């Protein structure tokens, strides 16, 4: 927890940035607003769900892109009608939104329940497995993914207009940011942090640790699903390759670059990622985030390395330290306690009980 003063300063900076982003379309280039910033906000929102689960719950999830993908695929299947790929349910767009988010929430709940008894590296590995299986399912079951993806997806009105989509991504990002931070002070959020620090203690205090983890994962999944909808509206298509292992890791890298215990860091990391991704390839407007030529991978790898050496708390950590005038060097406190890498399952019978 950071001091009240620096919290106020963080709020002031965030508010200023939001105001800037609100007026950005008035003076920013179309390319910058519609391509760079819309993508940044969407990826930032996805990465913020990793921060949410990691910082409060100690659960580093690699399944967030999969859940975003589930929402995207479900929207594509539900909203398109006859002639397109996928199931062609032909629902009205907003019904399709509800359908997509409902399916995503159910999937997140089930995956969360299955993972709720693992922590630390085991949780990470399990969610990685989810990602791999999810990719395989969508790649194999062409009925729901269309042979080589679902194309010509149209966003509901008025988000067909790129500037409106930008504002949707902005508003939803701001809402998620505020909500995620506020949740930290609710019973649910405090209990998540308790579960992160000592699940056995939480259990003896009366909390249902597994259910708590499951619901936290579900909530993170729902928000990832919202980001996934924005993503398909923005890209107008979705294919299994877009949720493959590469892009899955990219979301984690974004969260890590930004600072995995800072919510601001998610969007900061996304901006850096999108800028690098766009300009190291020097070909603007490539339609896939999963496209990873060697050059980009090297640059992003070096970037991660550099940031990790300078500050394990990522860019947000570096900024916070600079703003306090302490320079780089030994780490200071951060906005949310990073996860303790406890790997003890909740109730394993013997073991770890003194």
């Amino acid at each position, binding site marked *: 927890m950071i001091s009240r003063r620096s919290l106020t300063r963080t709020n002031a900076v965030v508010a200023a940035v939001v105001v800037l982003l609100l007026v950005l379309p008035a003076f920013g280039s179309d390319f910058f607003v519609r391509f760079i910033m819309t993508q940044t906000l969407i990826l930032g929102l996805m990465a913020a769900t990793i921060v949410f689960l990691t910082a409060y719950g100690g659960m580093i999830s690699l399944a967030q892109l999969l859940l975003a993908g589930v929402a995207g695929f479900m929207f594509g299947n539900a909203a398109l009608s006859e002639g397109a790929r996928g199931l062609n349910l032909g629902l009205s767009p907003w019904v399709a939104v509800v359908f997509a988010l409902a399916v995503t929430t159910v999937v997140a709940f089930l995956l969360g329940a299955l993972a709720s008894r693992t922590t630390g590296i085991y949780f990470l590995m399990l969610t990685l497995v989810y990602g791999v299986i999810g990719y395989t399912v969508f790649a194999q079951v062409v009925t729901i993914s269309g042979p080589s993806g679902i194309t010509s997806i149209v966003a509901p009105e008025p988000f067909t207009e790129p500037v409106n989509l930008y504002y949707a991504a902005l508003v939803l990002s701001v809402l998620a940011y505020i909500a995620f931070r506020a949740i930290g002070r609710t019973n649910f959020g*405090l209990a998540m942090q308790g579960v992160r620090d000592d699940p056995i*203690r939480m259990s003896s*205090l009366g909390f249902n640790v597994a259910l708590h983890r499951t619901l936290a994962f579900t909530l993170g999944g729902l928000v990832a699903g919202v980001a996934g909808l924005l993503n398909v509206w923005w890209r107008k298509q979705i294919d299994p390759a877009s949720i493959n292992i590469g892009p899955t890791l990219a979301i984690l890298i974004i969260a890590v670059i930004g600072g995995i215990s800072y919510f601001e860091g998610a969007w900061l990391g996304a901006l850096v990622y999108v800028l690098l991704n766009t300009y190291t390839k020097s070909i603007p407007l490539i339609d896939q985030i999963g496209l990873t030529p060697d050059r980009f991978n090297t640059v992003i790898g070096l970037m991660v390395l550099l940031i990790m050496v300078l500050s394990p708390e990522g860019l947000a950590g570096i900024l916070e330290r600079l703003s306090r005038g302490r320079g780089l060097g030994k780490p200071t406190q951060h906005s949310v306690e990073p996860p303790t890498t406890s790997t003890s399952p909740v109730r394993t019978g*013997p073991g770890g*009980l003194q």
Partner: protein
Amino acid sequence: MAPDATAAGGIDGGDTSSVVQLSSVTMAFGGLLALGGVDLDVAQGQRLAILGPNGAGKTTLFNVVAGDLVPTQGSVVIKGVDCTRLPSRHRPRLGVARTYQKARSFPGLTVADNLYLALVGRRGRHMSLLWPGRVGRDLRDRARAAASAVWLEDRIGMRVSDLSHGQKRQLEIGMALATDPDVLLLDEPASGLSRGERERLTELLEQLPAHTTLLLIEHDMDVAFQVGRRVVVMADGLVVASGSPEEVQANSLVHEIYLGSEAHT
């Protein structure tokens, strides 16, 4: 169950209404028999001190009562409810609170939040995504009172990771006391405390409400014999002696296996 705390003889164990009832509880860790068939009846309001050398099975006994371990054999009944296989999270509803031998709290949260979580655990809404309303403010007040009770009122905003060892222990006791438990399990609460802190702890334990049943594991004889009205001595996973502090101190077997080497009374 759980008749009124004023029931005659509650304090001295003459009461027949047992709050915690263990019947031939066995706990095996692989080949090691940590508990070898323990029978124990603890009456309401009883102040029970559990003594025994290292490795006697005291903590294991607590883990079984608190639901952190499922016994290999035997049964655990708390307030008439069979809790043998009931996970630990159902204990607070029965009014059971415990501390751990190695203090367990939430290092990333403040003292206030730790105490608040203890209270929410027993009577709050665990899953509430709303900002704490009136009920929440009420629990916050109680958390503050709990902090004062264990002399941590000026540390309330501090992160637990920044507390000293002794303060973490105080906090743990505070978290257990905060919920106003009916059954309180304290595992060596005095260990790591200074002399002055031990005296304050003893005082605190003597002031527990009459209805509270206390099970206290304690190596510190001063604390154990002053707080305990009944003393149980364990060795090698068995209860080897049980009685009033005077009886236990006079028991020669007890001297042999335990007190002989450490007692100074």
